[in-house]
């Protein structure tokens, strides 16, 4: 029973309340850094790390933070873990650090993290909060990987830097440029809606 509940929290973040496709949170990094799968994966995992740590911490401190100053307190806790992630990436994955650029410090203002702090971590014990962070983080990572693989595949004809199509392939450069982010995400969401609508029709 207990294990069931744990799985439920993780799966909730992955599918039912997927932060990108369902809750529509954290749009800026989703649009900006999904030009290649490596970037998407890196950003997703960095955000997952921050989500798990901040969720656990906020959950531990939930009885001590006065509700009036809770938002600044949460932001400060989140900023601490983001700084840690930033320093770790700079030390151990410098090329990723450079290609994500300003979007690493901007994890602080990623609405997913603050939203989970407010709506989940501040009301639950540390273990479920950690699981929620994991589920949400993986849901975010999954969405980033889906969008970035579409953009990398059609925009530069590669996956993880390896060429997929033959030499005759003309990459659609617009997809890796700024407008492609908006359009790819819009079409991906439309596709998900369409699949769900047609499923409903079958039932």
């Amino acid at each position, binding site marked *: 029973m207990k294990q069931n509940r744990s799985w439920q929290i993780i799966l909730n973040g992955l599918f039912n309340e997927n932060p990108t496709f369902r809750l529509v949170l954290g749009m*800026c990094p989703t649009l900006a850094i999904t030009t290649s799968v490596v970037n998407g994966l890196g950003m997703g995992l960095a955000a997952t790390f921050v989500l798990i740590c901040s969720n656990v911490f906020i959950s531990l401190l939930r009885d001590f933070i006065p509700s009036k100053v809770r938002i600044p307190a949460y932001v*400060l806790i989140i900023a601490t873990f983001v700084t840690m992630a930033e*320093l770790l990436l700079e030390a151990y994955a410098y090329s990723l650090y450079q290609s994500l650029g300003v979007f690493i410090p901007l994890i602080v203002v990623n609405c997913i993290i603050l939203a989970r702090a407010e709506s989940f971590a501040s009301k639950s014990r540390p273990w479920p909060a950690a699981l929620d962070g994991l589920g949400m983080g993986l849901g975010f990572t999954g969405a980033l990987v889906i969008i970035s693989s579409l953009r990398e595949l059609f925009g530069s004809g590669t996956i993880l830097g390896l060429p997929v199509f033959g030499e005759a392939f003309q990459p659609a450069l617009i997809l890796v440029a700024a407008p492609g982010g908006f359009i790819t995400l819009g079409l991906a969401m439309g596709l998900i809606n369409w699949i769900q609508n047609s499923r409903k029709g079958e039932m």
Partner: protein
Amino acid sequence: MSFSHLALIAISSMLVNNFVMAKFLGCCPFLGVSGKIKTAVGMGVAVTFVMALASLFTWLVQYHLLVPLGLGYLRTIAFILVIAALVQFVEMVIQKFSPALYHSLGVYLPLITTNCAVLGVAILNIDAEYSLLEALINGTFGGLGFLLVIVLMAGIREKLETARIPAALRGFPITLIAAGLMAIAFFGFSGLIK
């Protein structure tokens, strides 16, 4: 530091490297609060104001507090604190001196703390090693660029309400696609600056 150099920064941050269209900063309010032109104007004005002030104060914090003390690694934490305090302060000042403006902006002011365009402009100013005046211009015109696109987007969305759209694309997806087409249009500005 000639006038044309400053004008170049202004045009660049407002149009060519527009915060929303080219840098993807401030997408959440851009997509969330662009339903009606009136609220979009309110949000845009508030963001412009805070971006200008944030550019000024974070620059001062960086070069007169963090750098002399050797605390450069605390930048993210320090900046988000400055911005949160600034937003709170702006809220109180507006409430005191212009209750009318406060009521029209009211709801949007606290939201600005988590607008990544504000933290984004602060960090980009430092990364680009701008002087105080350059940072101020970058912030102000970046904010005006945000105002421009959010109002344009609200206009488009008011028209979309009555348009015939495939069921699956209704709502969020069509907004994103419209934003994508707008971003293509903003590509046209890239010829302005060599």
